């Protein structure tokens, strides 16, 4: 290994280790608060503010009806809710499905707006224009909200002060069926813990599409959603941070969302997220390492940028440590007309314990142990079990999923560099 590669490896390692240690210490510090929060069982609201739930829908005939059905089960007075479905130029039966829901759920005040396809940001702005609610919730048409979630989130607004602009939900994967969806389930569970920690440090940088709730007056004041952004949910969170508003996380306000079921769809989703993330980092670069933005500017934004180096670095080191030696062996076989029998002749298992690269092994072991601890805490935090195949799925998560995301990260950087455009 030459010096440059060693420096790169140790830089990435130190960065990742430092972040993990930091989050772990923060978790320990906040444990008392979290325990107190966890004990909260029943919520009594003194005031039920009017809530507008905006559902942007583009070709969502599969899920929009069940999404609206889930709203009937919300533990919240129906006369304090209005639902605005913005049919964003769907070419399927979305409109008919919404009309069916309007007919089937008369207890809900559902308003349907049809517009030509203008993107999610524009659809949300359309709903924001006519919203009468004090609070404005966004709900993706492929997501289902748990009955108590809205009440819990409204409670946070009622008690969180006027500067609280946004409350994010605890997002879980809806009915994971295949391995890829199960891996995403693990990722979302970790994300709930991370969001909970970030909220305590005023550092949330994304308002997930499935059921983030905003204070209407604040987002109106700041121009609504950025319809030009490919990740308007990240952009609005960065903007709220930029204007020094508070963003809270409702750790037990669950919302279940559909997640990509194949690698191609996952790539499309992540490509958009990662490119959007880079664009937002660039757009709000004034906050980067800016002490007046506290932890968000000093730590979280650099960490968001570092995660791109980490993603690209993981792929590079995977190729360096695994693909390169493998390619060398394949090349050797190719040079000798794949005469495997000769190569295996007098095979001697020439292994010595000293051959193990302890530095690298230590790096991997240290990160793995930390990640495992985080994983267990995250599952407990999200009230989810690891399952009987938990350990195997954790291994798959670390060995395959991380790498896959790293690869997507590289491709997103390349595409952004090439100036390739992508619509929402």
């Amino acid at each position, binding site marked *: *290994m030459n010096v440059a590669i060693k420096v790169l490896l*140790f830089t990435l*390692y*130190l960065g990742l*280790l*430092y972040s993990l*240690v*930091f989050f772990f*210490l*923060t978790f320990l*510090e906040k444990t008392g608060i979290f325990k107190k929060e966890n004990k909260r069982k029943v919520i009594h609201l003194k005031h039920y503010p009017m809530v507008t739930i905006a559902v942007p829908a583009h070709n969502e005939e599969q899920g929009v009806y069940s999404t609206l059905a889930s709203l009937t089960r919300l533990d919240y007075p129906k006369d304090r809710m209005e639902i605005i479905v913005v049919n964003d130029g769907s070419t399927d039966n979305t409109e008919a499905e919404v009309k069916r829901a309007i007919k089937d759920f008369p207890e809900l005040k559902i308003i349907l707006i049809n517009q030509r396809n203008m993107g999610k940001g524009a659809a949300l702005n359309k709903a924001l224009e006519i919203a009468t609610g004090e609070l404005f919730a966004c709900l993706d048409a492929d997501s289902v909200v748990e009955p108590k979630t809205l009440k819990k989130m409204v409670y946070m607004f009622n008690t969180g002060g006027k*500067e609280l602009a946004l409350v994010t939900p605890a997002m879980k994967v809806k009915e994971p069926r295949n391995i890829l969806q199960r891996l995403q389930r693990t990722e979302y569970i970790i994300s709930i813990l991370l969001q909970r920690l970030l909220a305590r*440090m*005023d550092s949330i940088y994304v308002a997930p599409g499935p059921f983030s709730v905003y204070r209407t007056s604040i987002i109106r004041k700041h121009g609504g959603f950025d319809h030009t952004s490919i990740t308007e949910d990240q952009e609005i969170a960065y903007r709220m941070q930029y204007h*020094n*508003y*508070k963003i809270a996380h409702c750790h037990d306000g669950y919302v279940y969302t559909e997640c990509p079921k194949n690698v191609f769809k996952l790539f499309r989703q992540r490509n958009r997220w990662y490119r959007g993330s880079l664009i937002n980092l660039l757009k709000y670069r004034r906050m980067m390492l800016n002490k*007046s*933005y*506290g*932890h*968000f500017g*000093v*730590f979280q934004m650099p960490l968001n940028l570092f995660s791109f180096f980490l993603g690209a670095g993981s792929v590079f080191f995977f190729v360096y440590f695994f693909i390169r030696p493998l390619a060398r062996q394949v*090349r*050797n076989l190719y*040079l*000798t*007309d794949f*005469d495997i029998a*000769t*190569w295996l*002749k*007098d095979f*001697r298992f*020439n292994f*010595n314990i*000293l*051959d193990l*690269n*302890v*530095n690298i092994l*230590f*790096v991997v072991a*240290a990160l793995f142990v930390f990640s495992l601890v985080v994983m267990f805490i995250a599952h407990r935090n999200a009230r989810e079990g690891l399952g009987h195949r938990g350990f195997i799925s954790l291994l798959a998560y670390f060995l395959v999923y991380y790498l896959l995301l790293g690869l997507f990260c590289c491709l997103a950087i390349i595409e952004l560099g090439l100036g390739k455009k992508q619509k929402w």
Partner: protein
Amino acid sequence: MVKRESYKHMYIIAGIITALIFSLGLLLGLVLDYERLQYANRVTKQQEVNFKSLQLNSVLLDEFKSKKELCSILQVSLQQVLTDLGYSLERIEEYEKESDINKEEYELILRNYLLDNIRYWLIARRGMDMCNMDMVTILYFFSEETCDICPTQGTLLTYYKKKYGNDLLVFPINVDLRKEEKVVPVLMGIFEIDTYPTLVINDKKYEGLVNREELGKLICASFKNASKCK
């Protein structure tokens, strides 16, 4: 507006813990490097004993030419020693690449291995003459610094070494060590070597990359008994 909390204390504590874990990793690396060096020195000593044993065998052959069993002992021992030498060399080259602080010591050991290869080559030549052994020796001159195609030649030699086992002896000579080890330029002078890779197959020189087919033919042509190639 949100009143942002300071996390300065946490940054410092996290930094200290990270530094401790990182230092532990570095310390482990240093211990490993030391242990590897000790191992390399032990193996070098073993090689030295092996060489003395072979050298004695060779001297005995000089004295007692009629004792033909010495020939078979020589051939088997030579093969065994060269196989061990090959494996150890490969391993120590890797250790040398990964070592940050003991490079000089490793280089000394690698020079020792180079000399061992030349000494074994001489013993093999002598053995072939005296015992009429049907073996092929290949002196393989290569450079890691200036020769991109040398790894390909190395792969082909390893392949034929696997194929012909005891009947083919390959002696790699790393010409990058010619400044440190004066015997290398001497040997290069004997065979007039100025390009890499160069193979000297039973004293005949072949410059440039010898491809798989050609190398196979050259090795086969060098055996006294052509049936060895069937």
